[in-house]
């Protein structure tokens, strides 16, 4: 039997209220150990206050060939970005 410990992806939320961010991976036998290992491996410099782990095989990723259909439609919706709109200087900060 292959006894290599499964691979886990680690997500950490830092001090400043940002979303959890992918920081890397590690090996662990189960989720509890993955959390502990993540604490030891990825927060050695006070990087985080909250840790998520997910086994790598459970991540479904978009396929690169879908890149066009997945993301290009949003590229054309430039009006979603605030800089699309000209606001007269006299109106002030908005």
């Amino acid at each position: 039997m292959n006894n290599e410990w499964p691979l886990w992806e680690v997500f950490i939320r830092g001090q400043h209220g940002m979303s959890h961010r992918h920081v890397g991976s590690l090996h662990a036998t189960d989720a509890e150990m993955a959390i502990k290992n993540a604490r030891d491996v990825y927060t050695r410099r006070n990087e985080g206050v909250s840790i998520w782990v997910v086994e790598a095989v459970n991540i479904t990723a978009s396929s690169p060939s879908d890149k066009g259909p997945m993301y290009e439609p949003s590229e054309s919706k430039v009006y979603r970005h605030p800089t699309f709109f000209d606001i007269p200087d006299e109106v002030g900060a908005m």
Partner: protein
Amino acid sequence: MYAQMIKTASTGVKSDEDMSDLERQFQARIDAGEKIEPKDWMPEDYRATLIRQMGQHAHSEIVGTLPEGNWVTRAPTLERKAILLAKVQDEAGHGLYLYCAAETLGVTRDEITEMLLDGRMKYSSIFNYPSLNWADIGAIGWLVDGAAIMNQVPLQRTSYGPYSRAMVRICKEESFHQRQGYDAIRACAEGTDAQKKMAQDALNRFWYPSLMMFGPPDSDSVHSAQSMAWKIKINTNDELRQKFVDQTVPQAEYLGLTVPDENLKWNDETGQYDFSQPDWGEFFDVVKGNGPCNVDRLADRNKAWDDGAWVRDGMMAHARKKAAAKIAAE
């Protein structure tokens, strides 16, 4: 530079007309500065070369814990011991990041670990030199990590996304390593006569092996061109070596230590130091396995791996039982 003499898994750079459409698109993405991600199409040779390079880089971090770990139990103060332990722990972490990055290319960590253990994969020649006195710990941080940083900073821009991200994380942690090393050797250089002797002895032994870390002269480097086109190698060996010498010589002078090179002198015309090449015959001997510590280093890694097998298996068996019990209870 922890990846030396990476044999590119191809024969030279392909010309535009020799490339398939996919290869041409791939090269265009790299030329445009795009990152290649794990599920993207990539030439098999690119994948194979990267596995070799990241694997060797990771192995170097792991084997590199041995010469420094050699002094953890003999560190002279509590603070030095804590700093050294934290530093070596970082190296283990760097190995871990790099193994994980390599795993995105379809090898497992156990597979490449076994390739290190049975000698199919290499690690940097520098770690086949012994750490003999306490100032060596300073010299390793200052010179070896210093040389590694030279290579790793540009590698943050490497074309493979996971590799590049691992390097960003590693570089953030590396400058602590070089500084702690310089600080440790500086305490020796400014200390008693015996301590000064340690510092000079460390520099004498680590100077040329550090220069070797950048790999053979460009004129003898047959593998660079394709790797540079793929942006998995960013600078040439000689460029980085020169940069390292120019940066390091004034640091040695500040310490009052003598670089063991009679030909070392500032060249006003080139605006660089002229310096002696290391003994490349010795380098190739070390790479072939005949360095002072090759046998011991590999034996130590093998022993740790073999001794740890029951632990890895035992923990995995427990996790399986726990998962099975949970399913049975549901």
